[in-house]
């Protein structure tokens, strides 16, 4: 893993397709502390654009980075408020 964050929680949505990666990410981020980082593991290739778009249009979250690994897309989202 190249991203170096202090990860609070990992959400595994491998296999799930639209809209579930975004919806589950929202539900999971609401459960972590403000300032915490959520790691999301997805296989949906649309999640790269969707989680980016969701984070950009949603208050209280910040997309730190996204990685395209071996068949898995990794997203790192911080809860900011």
């Amino acid at each position, binding site marked *: 893993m190249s991203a170096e964050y202090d990860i609070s929680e990992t959400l595994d949505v491998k296999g799930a397709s*639209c*809209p579930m990666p*975004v919806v589950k*990410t929202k*539900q999971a981020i609401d459960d972590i502390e403000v300032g915490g980082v959520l790691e999301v593991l997805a296989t949906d290739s649309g999640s790269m654009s969707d989680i980016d778009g969701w984070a950009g249009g949603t208050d209280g979250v910040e997309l730190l980075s996204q990685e395209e690994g071996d068949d898995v897309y990794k997203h790192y989202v911080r809860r900011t408020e």
Partner: protein
Amino acid sequence: MSTDTPDAPSDDAPSRAELAARVDELEDALTEATAEDDGKKMSIIATKGTLDMAYPPLILASTAAAFGYEVTVFHTFWGLDILHEKRSKNLKLSSVGNPNMPVPNAVAALPGMDRVTTKMMEKKIDDNDTATIEELIETSLDMGVEFQACQMTIDLMDYDEDDFYDGVTTGVGAATALEDMADADIQLLV
């Protein structure tokens, strides 16, 4: 060159105290307006009850809820079947009238073909790990989406209020939908 002091009050100009009062008034109005318009809202009218047409309103509703939107989906006519606990698990795909279907319309019109194409689509949904209609409804309800079932069509279709998922609002009509639409940032008819 004029020697008048520009700030000197003239008879018809408002006094400083009047202006200050007006500023206070406007600031209060602005605070009120922004407080009322705090959240983003989306209003969807769902009128179709085929398997393919049940997905778009539910996908958009759950996604908008994830964005923090306050979402209302008003279900009317065949759209009611999406909220009907039993019928929602058995929504059909029409094989007629869709030229993208793998069967010609003349064949698609044969008895039983809707069942065949529905099974095909259900298998694809399953193979692709696409969420089921039931899953999308339960998830949307969890996220605070308000599903409304149009009372006039409940009566028309002879449905019972208990037929719908727990959490579905009944006893609402077009005026409720219109009020939501007028208040929403996004309005969609599906």
